[in-house]
């Protein structure tokens, strides 16, 4: 460790102003802060010293994603085994899935971080850690069969047009990972939906008899309310789906980590659940067709709802910053998810679009909450003055 520190200190002048590699200064800075805790402090303005900096926040989110990621890898192997009748051990399933997942992960990181580093050099600011989380989220919310070049294209689009041109981490108006997914969804719909994309190897090879690769959402959208996966399968995640979204148990572990460390807002998570349940119950009350009669709690377990509610709706950058705004935002996400799922035949899943839509409106929610605070206080002030 000591020799590494010495090596960095020795080479530091090369990257500073006037040095030989001056242009690569922010790349050097990124690696230095990755290896060691930076010791410089802010010199002007008022600042709160806190151990929880951007890097730690991001690492905690990555840790919270790990259970979903590990289970997702295992489920890729398990579903592949089911489809083709292959028996493997627990670790066999896991490593089968792991080797299929790894290329997606590497492509996402290399392309995204490449753009991040390049733009930091060009614009002369520090490399931010924001992409560490986005880079894991993106491969977790796409089907395992996504071609790598499509993934690379989507990541490039999302990072450049979703984040960098707005000024980098912390300035984006919409969730970057979801922009990547929406880009794939609208540009290559055949690779992103259907019955075949969710299980590795299914598009090229015929599955054994009686196996359908349809996700519970797709079954519901086609009107099949019988033969649904059991509650425990849905909860544990033994169903086809995007890599990270299937296991609600793994996601709940992640949610516990995020809530315990206080990184994600419990208000948003709770209000999304309330939103889904209340609109779901409203649908049940009318129950004009079979999909409307699906129990409200079922909506919590199918599709990407849980994953989105825990890891994406709570994104502190794109969610509202006011506390009351968070309640409204979460509730409306939950409401839109059910509405899109039930009433829009074009899309089986609504979580991605519901979050993107509310990202658009979250500044507006903030604006009106702040205005109402101002009005409220003015009124109180006037009452006091008159009294």
């Amino acid at each position, binding site marked *: 460790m000591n020799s590494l520190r010495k090596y960095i200190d020795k080479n530091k002048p090369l990257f500073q102003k006037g040095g030989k590699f001056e242009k690569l200064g922010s790349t050097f800075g990124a690696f230095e802060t990755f290896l060691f805790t930076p010791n410089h402090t802010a010199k002007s303005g008022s600042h709160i010293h806190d151990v929880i900096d951007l890097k730690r926040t991001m690492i905690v989110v990555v840790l919270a994603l790990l259970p979903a990621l590990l289970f997702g890898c295992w489920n890729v192997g398990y579903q592949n085994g089911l489809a083709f009748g292959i028996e493997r051990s627990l670790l066999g399933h896991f490593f089968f899935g792991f080797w299929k997942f790894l290329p997606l992960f590497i492509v996402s990181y290399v392309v995204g971080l490449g753009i991040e580093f390049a733009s930091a050099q060009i*614009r002369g*600011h520090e490399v931010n850690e924001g992409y560490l989380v986005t880079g894991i989220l993106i491969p977790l919310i796409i089907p395992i069969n996504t071609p790598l070049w499509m993934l690379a294209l989507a990541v490039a689009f999302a990072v450049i*047009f*979703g984040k960098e*041109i*707005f*000024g*980098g981490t912390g*300035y984006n*108006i*919409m969730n970057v990972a979801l*922009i990547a997914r*929406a880009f794939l969804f*609208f540009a290559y719909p055949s690779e992103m939906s259907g019955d075949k994309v969710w299980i590795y190897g299914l598009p090229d090879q015929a599955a054994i008899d009686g196996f359908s690769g349809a996700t519970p959402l797709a079954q519901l959208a086609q009107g099949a309310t019988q033969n649904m996966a059991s509650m425990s399968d849905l909860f544990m995640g033994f169903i086809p789906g995007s890599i990270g979204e299937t296991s609600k148990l793994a996601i709940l572990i992640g949610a516990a980590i995020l809530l315990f460390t206080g990184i994600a807002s419990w208000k948003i998570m709770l209000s999304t659940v309330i939103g889904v349940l209340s609109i779901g119950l409203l649908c049940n009350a009318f129950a004009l067709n079979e999909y409307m009669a699906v129990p409200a709690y079922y909506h919590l377990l199918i599709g990407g709802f849980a994953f989105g509610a825990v890891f994406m709706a709570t994104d502190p950058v794109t969610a509202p910053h006011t506390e009351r705004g968070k309640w409204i935002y979460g509730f409306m996400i939950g409401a*839109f998810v059910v509405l*899109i799922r039930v*009433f*829009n*035949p*074009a*899309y089986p899943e*609504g979580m991605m*679009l*519901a979050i*993107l*839509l509310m*990202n*658009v*409106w979250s*500044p*507006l929610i*903030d*604006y009106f909450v702040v205005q109402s605070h101002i009005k409220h206080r003015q009124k109180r002030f006037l009452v006091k003055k008159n009294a």
Partner: protein
Amino acid sequence: MQEMINIFVKSVFIDNMIFAFFLGMCSFLAVSKTVKTSIGLGAAVIFVQIITVPVNYLLLEYVMKPGALSWLGESFKDVDLSFLSFMIYIATIAAMTQLVEMVIEKFSPSLYNSLGIFLPLIAVNCAILGGSLFMEQREYENIGQVLSWGLGSGFGWALAIVSLAAVREKMKYNHIPAPLKGIGITFIVTGLMSLAFMSFMGITL
């Protein structure tokens, strides 16, 4: 009644003037700097829309359509004035805009000043003329449906401009690359917003 609600929801979310048809972009991009002024312009557009669309509908039904003038007498049965529709629509819209301008100038001079040239320019706002032309093209059956289309399309436009204004207020301190500052980034934001509005595409009411 149900039909009216369907038309309203459809015109606000699914056939949104901005995010589905990209109509009325000029004032959408230019006046969306602050939420307050954009609420003012949005309200003005809603007002103009709910008056001009039904008035144009009545003019179309009773004056311009082939055979619409038959209430004047037998000899007018074959008269077809529909070639006049563009001119008549624009005339109605210009008259209404003038009225709105006078009302706003009288009651809210600050809004009048902040809207500036864009208030009289409502007369040539594509969304307003588009509202009347869609009304003709879609062949709404009665005045109630037309009213709800006018209200919905105006409301959808107002919603779009107000949400863009809130986003732009939030982006005030962003470190945006110099070539994209101002209109450039606004176009990109509009694109991303219509991506989010794709969530309503495909809903059939």
